[in-house]
């Protein structure tokens, strides 16, 4: 059970050790973070590449659920835990030289620990705690540079995040009032009490609460401000990774408890609004970080719409869109490291850095869904699912996604044409390809997925099969409950 617990505990420990160690030896303090993250990756990677037949279930401190907290490592959770370790290593600050280096490393490790916990935990309050921990770590990381905009953006983010947490906690309280337990599997055993209005209200409050990090409308006003004023690698991690983990909580609730209710309609409605507001605002964006920040809002709207589809189709579509966006958006923010000025200032960048411009074109094509890139397959999954739903709201969503994608194509390629314009003095941009190495690696990964789309699809289907199966989750956490739980299809 080490792969479940060490990736959470070690970074936590290291986070608090980095600051004192930095006083003694800067080198050890700087090396501690990558070492710990590599250890986590080494522990988790075999579970992802060669998944065990049964999910890994660990009761923390040997306190049995539902009183104790259980860590549930099915293929989906392990995939995200791996992604956390991998992406944190990819976007680690290898160059150093930051006056606040130790603090930054500590906060990154905190964020990594809480993100892994978000992926693995099976208890609702534990998830809330990890969510808050991730929030606090991200507040620190965003405001670390100390510039005025960063501070104001942090405070605005903090306020809406805290507001969301208050609502989420209210939702959890409501849930606890109805059922008396906060263990996800326990909630799934008998979801009857939660199918009524009170339970739906609790779900709605939690959607609003956890939707802050998941960039849901109307809670996503912090996104352009924070992603424009924070360092690009922090934005990459927040936009790519943390937002998906926030959606993961809602997914677990949806699969285990609220699958047969009208709860997905909340997600569909808010998802349509999110995608609309996100992509249309991106049309008017005048600088690169904000353009891709708005685009990430749009894509997360798509994730919400995907998860609102019924059955395992929705789970598959949602996971596919989420993973695709994780790849592409992190890579785009990796490019934003140097392309942080206005779009006008980047005119003609392709002359000096053709590789970066080509990468941008590749990611743009995949974002808007051009076959044979993976973005197309994720999009058509969502569209076919919406058409199959057949409700009026689903058709509205279908039309909205198509309209918004056309707008997205226009503004992305308006910028791409600007990149390739011939100008006399092209902007300097990247000094060497090491500066956008994460984006390069992610681009290579995208192309690899394109070529091997079928094996990837099969893996995703296997992951979905586990993740969308309610009774499987319950029987894994509570083996004895299989005998006398209410029979649900």
């Amino acid at each position, binding site marked *: 059970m080490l792969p479940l617990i060490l990736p959470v505990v070690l970074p936590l420990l290291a986070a608090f050790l980095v600051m004192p160690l930095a006083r003694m030896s800067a080198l050890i303090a700087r090396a501690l973070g990558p070492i710990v993250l590599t250890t986590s990756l080494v522990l988790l990677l075999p579970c992802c590449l060669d998944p065990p037949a049964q999910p890994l279930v660990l009761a923390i401190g040997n306190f049995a659920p539902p009183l104790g907290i259980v860590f549930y490592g099915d293929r989906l959770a392990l995939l995200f835990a791996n992604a956390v370790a991998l992406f944190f290593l990819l976007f680690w600050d290898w160059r150093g030289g930051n006056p606040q280096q130790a603090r930054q490393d500590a906060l990154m490790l905190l964020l990594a620990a809480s993100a892994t916990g978000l992926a693995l935990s099976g208890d609702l309050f534990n998830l809330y705690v990890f969510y808050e921990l991730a929030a606090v770590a991200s*507040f620190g990381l965003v*405001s670390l540079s100390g510039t*005025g*905009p960063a501070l104001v953006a942090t*405070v605005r983010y903090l306020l809406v995040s805290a507001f969301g947490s*208050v609502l989420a906690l209210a939702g959890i309280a409501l849930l606890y009032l109805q059922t008396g337990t*906060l263990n996800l599997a326990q909630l799934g055993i008998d979801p009857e009490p939660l199918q009524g209005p009170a339970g739906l209200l609790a779900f709605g409050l939690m959607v609003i609460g956890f939707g802050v990090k998941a960039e849901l409308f109307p809670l996503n006003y912090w996104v352009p401000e924070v992603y424009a004023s924070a360092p690009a690698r922090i934005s990459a991690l927040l936009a790519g990774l943390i937002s998906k983990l926030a959606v993961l909580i809602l997914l677990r609730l949806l699969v285990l408890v609220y699958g047969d209710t009208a709860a997905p309609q909340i997600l569909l409605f808010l998802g349509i609004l999110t995608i609309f507001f996100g992509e249309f605002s991106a049309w008017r964006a005048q600088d690169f970080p904000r353009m891709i920040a708005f685009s990430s809002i749009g894509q997360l709207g798509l994730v919400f719409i995907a998860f609102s589809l019924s059955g395992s189709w929705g789970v598959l579509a949602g996971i596919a869109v989420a993973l695709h966006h994780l790849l592409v958006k992190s890579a785009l923010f990796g490019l934003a490291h140097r392309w942080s000025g206005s779009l006008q200032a980047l005119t003609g960048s392709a002359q000096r850095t053709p590789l970066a411009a080509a990468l941008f074109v590749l990611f743009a094509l995949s974002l808007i869904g051009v076959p044979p890139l993976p973005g197309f397959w994720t999009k058509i999954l969502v569209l076919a699912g919406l058409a199959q739903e057949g409700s009026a709201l689903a058709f509205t969503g279908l039309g909205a996604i198509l309209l918004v994608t056309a707008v997205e194509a226009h503004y992305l390629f308006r910028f791409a044409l600007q990149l390739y314009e011939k100008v006399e003095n092209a902007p300097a941009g990247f000094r060497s390809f090491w500066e956008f190495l994460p984006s390069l690696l992610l681009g290579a990964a995208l192309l690899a997925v394109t070529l091997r789309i079928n094996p990837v699809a099969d893996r995703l289907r296997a992951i979905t099969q586990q993740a969308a199966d309610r009774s499987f989750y319950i029987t894994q956490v509570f083996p004895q409950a299989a005998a006398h739980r209410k029979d649900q299809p």
Partner: protein
Amino acid sequence: MALDFVSILYIGALGLLLLGTFGLVTTTHLFRLILALALAEAGVNLLLILSGYRGGAQPPILGFGPQDMPMVDPIPQALVLTAIVIGVGVQALAVAAAVRIYRRYGTLDLVALKAHLEGDLARKQGIAPPKSAEKPAGERPLSPVPPRPQEP
């Protein structure tokens, strides 16, 4: 409607939550927002504790009273402890950020701060500040006079 002790507490908790939410939503002064947040969090914490209340039960301490007496649910109390700590931490962070913002910008008004944020970002990125247009945007949709054939 018989108002017993627990109902009053529920009303109080909800009231705190509503007060705090109202404050969060309407105020534009940063410090007042933090205070409103504290109120709202207090309300929610109270709500959470109340969810564990059992009528006529005793505190969840072994050896406090007879063994067979029902106990209040201890789990919400543990949850609330965590929530209070989280809340305190976040509020402390917020106050620290507010202090630094005041030192940097000299104001705690959200509207002014948003303007500063946008202005500073725009200046850093080299985007010109928005200006009113000199004339209507776009071209005249339909010419009032039928167009002449094009001049060479």
